[in-house]
């Protein structure tokens, strides 16, 4: 059992904002003191660049920065040289599309779902336009779940890449990524997974899944902004073209334009990386592992079920993902535009996301192009859920407009 009250003391935001109900964890998460300290320590005690200094502090930072690969390798079960630090999961997915794109040819198919976030659609759309590829969508149910059978139906010889979220960002559908990977590989297709909404909340084992690339963002798992983690099978990373070129990622180059790149993963980290961010992201990963990802997952499931039960009792609320066991509660208040409803909740010091959540073709699955998303984390409580349900029960057009007077 998590000692949530004790854990909450680790988060200065929760201490400084005792009345805030932060249910916008799908957007970003709050930061524990150990993560904040890691960032400030870098600025106050050991500032330097990495991979270029011949002095002690620089060596310390090399050790801390590259050592963070080991922490993430432990978190998702891979080798440290299979972890590249990019700037967010969007950068990871753009790198995936760019790198795999070089290996694709005209007429090849990329398989996606309509529940994907913009960052797992737009890079592929652009690639498809450039290389004349086909984009196809795996059929899902109304709550965006892919069944193994529907994936099997979508798969064919022409598919060279499958790119999907492990957990979808609006509805929290957990996809059967291991089975999908196995089937896709039997056709020789690469599998890319957007782990933005999974890694922070559950134990992820990329070796067990078997996927080729897996990306996630540090800031959604108690880490700082500006750090994306890209896992790739080492043999794939070694043959994949980097999206950015510049300092640190090259071994040597000459005036006749011959360029020798460094080995993966450093070849994907052109220019000065977010050193303090990466070091602090490692602290966040250690912090989560110390609590236990399985414990976090179980607690969040229980809390979500509690919140859902309360919300389902309300006549003015329509839940969009009642059958999903996990992830955010996505809902609308009847007759109230999502942003107006979120405005009312904001007036009660409740932070949620409203709109289409960057998943702008999800409406083709769920039939509405806007919703409110209450996304939880392990530091949220049942008391907060109670206050949330009370506030949600009061959402009406009158009250939503009333906040302006």
């Amino acid at each position, binding site marked *: 059992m998590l000692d949530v009250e004790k854990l909450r003391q680790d988060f200065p935001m929760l201490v400084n904002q005792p009345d805030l109900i932060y249910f916008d964890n799908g957007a970003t998460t709050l930061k524990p003191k150990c993560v904040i300290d890691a960032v400030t320590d870098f600025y106050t005690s050991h500032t330097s660049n990495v991979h270029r200094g011949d002095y002690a502090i620089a060596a310390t930072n090399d050790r801390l920065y590259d050592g963070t690969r080991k922490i993430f390798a432990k978190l998702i079960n891979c080798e440290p040289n299979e972890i590249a630090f990019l700037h967010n999961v969007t950068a990871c997915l753009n790198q995936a599309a760019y790198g795999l794109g070089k290996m694709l040819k005209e007429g090849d198919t990329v398989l996606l779902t309509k529940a994907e976030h913009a960052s797992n659609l737009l890079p592929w759309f652009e690639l498809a336009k450039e290389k004349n590829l086909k984009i196809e969508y795996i059929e899902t149910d109304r709550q965006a779940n892919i069944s193994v059978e529907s994936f099997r139906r979508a798969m064919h010889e022409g598919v060279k890449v499958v790119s999907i979220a492990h957990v979808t960002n609006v509805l929290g559908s957990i996809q059967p990524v291991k089975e999908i990977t196995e089937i896709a590989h039997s056709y020789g297709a690469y599998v890319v997974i957007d782990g933005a909404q999974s890694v922070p909340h559950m134990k992820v084992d990329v070796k067990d899944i078997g996927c080729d690339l897996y990306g996630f963002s540090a800031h959604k798992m108690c880490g700082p902004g500006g750090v994306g983690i890209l896992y790739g099978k080492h043999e794939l990373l070694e043959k994949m073209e980097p999206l950015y070129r510049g300092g640190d990622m090259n071994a040597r180059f000459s005036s006749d334009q011959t360029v020798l790149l460094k080995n993966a993963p450093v070849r994907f980290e052109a220019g000065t990386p977010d050193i303090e961010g990466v070091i602090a992201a490692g602290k966040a990963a250690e912090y989560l592992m110390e609590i236990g990802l399985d414990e976090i997952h179980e607690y969040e499931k229980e809390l979500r079920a509690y919140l859902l039960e309360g919300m389902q009792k309300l006549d003015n609320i329509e839940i969009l993902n009642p059958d999903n066991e996990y992830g955010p509660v996505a809902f609308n208040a009847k007759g109230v535009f999502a942003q107006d409803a979120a405005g009312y909740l904001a007036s009660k010091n409740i932070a949620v996301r409203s709109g289409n959540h960057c998943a702008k073709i999800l409406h083709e699955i769920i039939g509405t192009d806007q919703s409110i998303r209450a996304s939880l984390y392990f530091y949220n409580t049942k008391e907060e859920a109670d206050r949330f349900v009370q506030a949600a029960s009061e959402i009406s057009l009158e009250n939503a*407009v009333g906040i302006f007077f």
Partner: protein
Amino acid sequence: MANSLLNDPEILRELIMDHYQYPHNHQLTEDKSYASVHMASDSCIDDITVQSLIRDGKIQDIRFDGVACTISTASTSMMTDLLKGKSVEEANGIIDNYFSMIDAGEYDPDVLEEAVAMKNVYKQANRIKCATIGWKAMRQMIDESEKES
């Protein structure tokens, strides 16, 4: 409506709700002589189209449609009521007053009529875009009509 009533928050709230639920001039026309502006690139959700017919320095007609929140819909609906039939010069004066109000600046409540219902939107910075989306579309069409003439 007497202006004293426009100081009553209850009435202002009712006005916004009414314009949201039953927006005025809320149907687009196929008539090609209308100018048209689609406002969607500035915001994640609000997606509205405003049309107008400006002839001889006068706004003959304004229409709009689209998907938008209460503030966007009601403010645009009020704008259509207010600017329809006005000269371009009068309309520009009203729009200036409205933008000033939304920006927490000085304004003349008498020229804004029902649109004073939006006077507190500046307190919610994230909604300022909502309160100005339709008005910006109209300003754009006026500017273009003036360039042409």
